[in-house]
């Protein structure tokens, strides 16, 4: 109990900061049309490469400056957040459902289902993930649903491996044996007894996976393979910033800071959840 309160105290500022940033970014993304100071797509060559507000030559209303087409950077970041969060939630949830289901089956039943699923995981682990993602999106065609599907197809193994190991150790525990003696079927035991016990690991992984999904989406946008090129995404802003890095550093700096804060927050959140639920750490 003492250690729990110590761990709790050590974690909470991090948890609050991480949660605070994610909530802020999420709200900004949801209410983007109300908050964004400019139209994120409006080009104005008279306003190209305006610096952020504290530098000479800045224009009021363009807080973080503009890119080489005169588009407002802050508005593009706010609208880019929409894509980032949709991908984060949808892709991570899909990967989680697929991976957890297969992991539970492999870990609880063992035998040939386990052997087949483990072989598939081995094959998946032998692919370079970024190359796999790029390949899948190229095959599926660019677009939001392709990006989400590609991430789910690649990253389900993360869930599968952890849940399989958890389910395996849970399946050997006494309470599962008692349930079996009490006459519950295998499926019933798995859903009723084993699943709730592996849930903490799933939730923690889910948070980590959301951060990963945001990065993968940014990488895909960076190589110009994500959603349509019109809609701003954090990755496409970064790609633009990489090109004009010597003329307008802010076009790279601000999306980069946004991305780093978001990824750090998702992983801190996941770590904190894991620490809270992990009986060994608790």
């Amino acid at each position, binding site marked *: 109990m003492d250690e729990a309160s110590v761990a709790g105290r050590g974690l909470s500022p991090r948890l609050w900061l991480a949660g605070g940033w994610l909530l802020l970014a999420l709200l900004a993304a949801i209410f983007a049309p109300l908050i964004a100071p400019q139209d994120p797509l409006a080009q104005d060559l008279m306003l190209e490469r305006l610096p952020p507000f504290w530098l000479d030559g800045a224009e009021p209303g363009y807080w973080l400056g503009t890119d080489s087409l005169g588009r407002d950077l802050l508005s593009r970041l706010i609208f880019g957040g929409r894509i980032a969060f949709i991908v984060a939630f949808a892709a991570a949830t899909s990967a989680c459902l697929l991976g957890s289901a297969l992991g539970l089956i492999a870990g609880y039943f063992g035998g040939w289902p386990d052997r087949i699923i483990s*072989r*598939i995981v*081995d*094959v998946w*682990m*032998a*692919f*370079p*993930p*970024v*190359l*796999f993602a*790029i*390949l*899948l999106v*190229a*095959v599926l*065609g660019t677009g939001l649903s392709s990006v989400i599907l590609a991430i789910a197809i690649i990253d389900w193994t993360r869930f599968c491996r952890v849940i399989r190991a958890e389910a395996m150790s849970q399946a050997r525990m006494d309470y599962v044996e008692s349930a079996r003696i009490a006459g519950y079927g295998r499926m019933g035991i798995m859903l009723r007894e084993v699943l709730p016990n592996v849930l903490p690991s799933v939730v923690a992984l889910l948070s980590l996976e959301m*951060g*990963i999904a945001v*990065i993968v989406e*940014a*990488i895909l946008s*960076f*190589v*110009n*393979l994500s959603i349509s090129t019109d809609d701003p995404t954090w990755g496409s802003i*970064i790609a633009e910033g*990489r090109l004009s*890095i*010597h003329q307008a*550093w802010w076009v*790279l*700096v601000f999306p*980069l800071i946004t*991305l*780093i804060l978001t*990824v*750090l927050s998702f*992983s*801190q959140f996941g*770590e904190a959840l894991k620490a809270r639920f992990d009986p060994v750490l608790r």
Partner: protein
Amino acid sequence: MLLQRFFVRLLTMLVTLFGVAVVVFVVIRVAPGDPIAMMLPPGASNDDIARLRALYGLDKSIVQQFFIWFGGVLHGNFGTSISLRQDVLGLVFNRLPATLELATVALLMAIAIGVTAAILGARSRGSAVEAGIDIASGATLSIPDFLWGLVLILLFGVLVPVFDISGRVSPQLDLPFATQFYLAESILRLRFDLTWDLLKHMLMPAVALALPLAAIIAQLLKQSLKEVLDLDYVVLARVKGFSETQVILREALKNAVLPTLTLVGVQFTFLIGGTVIVERLFSYEGLGNMAIDAVIDRDLPLIQGIVLVFALLFVLINLAVDMTYALLNPRLRHG
């Protein structure tokens, strides 16, 4: 026992590779869009299209196509690149050394940084130094190589432009190399001016790849060191008058390194996977950069070849790690 383990692993590895070949083949063949149409000038006749399809074997069933291609692969024939019109294996071997050199330099850096941080942290356990290392490694770990690459581009390409952030070597240099292992060859030929130029290009992408791995090594090795440092024989060494650093370097390190070794092996494959986007970021002419071009050009034979070579690297590294672990671990050696 060890030999048996080796053969079982080898067999699993071959099954995995075959699985990769099947997956990549199926994924690519369900792709919409006709690669042949992109090779021909507009207005090509249907006869031309049919002839080219037959040339690349695209007129047969997908199962036939797979076995024709796979049979070729087994004989070292990976086909011809559609966009570059060259032998795939030749193209891959031309680019692979650049990626291997980058990954090796990154691995060495990760080990150097990670081990130093771990020793520093274990030496001053419980102090502010250790807390600092914990926070730094935690944050470093959470930020992927892609973002580290961008941070480094900003810091050392723009803010303080000391390193090159684009390419593998300065284009105006005359290269006397016989192989594509530029870095290794420049050292062997004692052309340290070229070594320096290569390193100046390689340093930033290598650091981007190394940082997350360095953080993992620091965390895990520090943990193992701290456990070992409480054991009797280490206490004895301390009583004998060795300093804490000497105790760590001479006694504790070799007994704490085994868990870290396994992890480094697995993480090294992640590092190699990371070269794909990091090479793109730094316009480094390696295999990963070529892979992205191949995907964008829908160059099916080239994509297949590159993915297979990456997969081969991954399983070979895992096999090597597994065997090293078995050799070093007495319980497995005599088990």
